[in-house]
């Protein structure tokens, strides 16, 4: 394909030599990472390792001091703002579940739908059959069909996590960034979430940040361990968890 010629990399997401510091504190330090299309990657690492800051950089919330961040091999993300990046097809789930609490579950999904997001488009928006079918489908996927008319604020913690994942699905991005999807979930919920992510991965590229090693193990994907803003180890979960440095700084002996 001719497109290949203009691409600097085949990776869906490509970070190279990224630095960022806040008031002298180096949050991200020479971080390099590549995510292939269709891949699911788990990111682990101790608190303060720079996981969330990395997501902030990818989604345009934080601008790196230096380094390259390429999406789909062509787009330099460091020059774009959040909205533009979202429009390109990068979706994000926050560490703390962030849904629109004073709106219904269904409206949350409606807002997330990947349709015209301009002022004019929303002002003159009319619901279509295709849209409501999409929403029904997502509701089913995240098991919130019964709660469709409830306010998102009244959902339980786990349901909010799912709703947020559901919003990602509705958004239908090329790349999903999922920050601690199972924090505060029961074992059953954790398991279901893993299944859900695997299901989603069939059609999407995913980057998951998680502390829960059981969950990461269940995902069974390539793992990257971050420490002090840089990559400490990369490989299968077994490779990484047997790495001396990883054990020292993160897993503990």
């Amino acid at each position, binding site marked *: 394909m001719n497109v290949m010629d203009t691409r600097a990399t085949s990776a869906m997401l490509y970070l190279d030599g990224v630095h960022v510091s806040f008031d002298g504190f180096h949050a991200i330090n020479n971080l390099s990472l590549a995510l292939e299309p269709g891949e699911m990657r788990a990111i682990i690492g101790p608190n303060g390792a720079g996981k969330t800051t990395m997501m902030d950089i990818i*989604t345009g*919330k934080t601008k790196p001091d230096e380094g390259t961040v390429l999406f789909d091999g062509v787009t330099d993300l460091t020059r774009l*703002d*959040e*909205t533009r990046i*979202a*429009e390109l097809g990068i*979706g*994000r789930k*926050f560490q703390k579940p*962030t*849904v*629109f*609490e*004073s*709106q219904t579950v269904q*409206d949350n999904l*409606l*807002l*997330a739908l*990947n349709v015209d*997001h*301009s*002022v004019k488009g*929303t*002002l*003159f*928006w*009319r619901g279509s059959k295709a849209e409501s079918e999409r929403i029904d489908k997502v509701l*089913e*996927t995240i*098991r919130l069909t*019964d*709660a469709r008319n*409830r306010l998102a604020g*009244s*959902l*339980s*913690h*786990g*349901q909010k996590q799912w709703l947020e994942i559901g*919003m990602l699905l509705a*958004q239908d991005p090329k790349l999903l960034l999922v920050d601690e999807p199972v924090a505060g979930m*029961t074992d*059953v*919920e954790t398991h*279901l979430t893993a*299944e*859900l992510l695997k*299901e989603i991965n069939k059609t999407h590229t995913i980057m998951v940040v998680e502390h829960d090693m059981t969950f990461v193990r269940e995902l069974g994907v390539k793992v990257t361990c971050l420490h002090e803003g840089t990559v400490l180890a990369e490989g299968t979960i077994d490779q990484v968890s047997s790495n001396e440095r990883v054990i020292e700084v993160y897993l503990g002996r």
Partner: protein
Amino acid sequence: MTPHMLTRSLDRGAAIFLAVVAACGILIPLSNLLLPAGSFLQVPTYLVALWGKYVCYAILALAIDLIWGYCGILSLGHGAFFALGGYAMGMYLMRQIGTRGVYGNPILPDFMVFLNYSKLPWTWYGFDMFWFAALMVLLVPGLLAFCFGWLAFRSRVTGVYLSIITQAMTYALLLAFFRNDFGFGGNNGLTDFKDILGFNVQAEGTRAALFALSCLALIASFLICRTVVSSKLGKVLIAIRDAESRSRFLGYRVESYKLFVFTLSACMAGVAGALYVPQVGIINPSEFAPGNSIEAVIWVAVGGRGTLVGAALGAIVVNYAKTFFTSGVLAPYWLFMLGALFILVTLLLPKGIVGTFNAWRDQSKEKRSALTTVSAAAEDGVTEPKMAE
């Protein structure tokens, strides 16, 4: 505005509100004009003018509720847009005076004559035509709001920072309009109007018509607000209010939304000001005072933020209280009462009058439905696990 948007925006509560406003807008002027003065049901002209003022305030309150209640933009400078609309109308009314000014100058308003202006400043060109003035009523506040908003929202100035700079904006305008060199009448402002579109502003018929027109404007503003907030755009606004950065990550251009609604709101405030001026007979820089804008926000809070009807109601209730308290034996204590009202409403009715009423109604409704609904599973959180297909 397409018909489906209108019908969608109307539920029964809104319809009743509109009916009440429309009834007032028709019956009060009729009663004032047709019934004999002094009869029990006749509304005296004094009250028509007073109510007209309240209605204009209600439009301003709606404008504030649209941005504050639905989009979380707390503007402490909305009085500026109101005043600018008022000035645009006032300038038209000044130009209408013509040779009837005290100096009889056909072109220059009186204050320019005694400040030795030799010719009309360019800022006053065109204001002798009503259509131009009417355009300016929308355009000047709208343009200011657009420029201000474009700067502020693009740089993501939010929360209290935004509130404070809106206050700085209205304060700067206050100082500017106070300056006689600015060419808008300085502290005395614009006054001593004669007629509007050829009708004497002081005639009872004109007053009644202005009142009816204000009610019409209130209805129109309300419909616009309802249309906006009940469209998908309204949901986006609420989304921005509740979780701004989430909205960005969903791909909404937050600054465009804010800019749209802020500009719309400013235009509405401008219309309110334009209707206000011929009814009270004066426009003066004190309308720019930051205190006025804060007070307008308080009307919305008293009535109920994010309810539209509440905003309009709050404006009327607070101003009625002000009228009532500033006369008679209560006059020396009215600030105590007004102050206490603000404190008590924030403490005891954080959702405002209408908001509290709604909450109470929803609660009783929920109780009733809870008795009949068996299924409570959804409320407890996790349902029986089912595999996604």
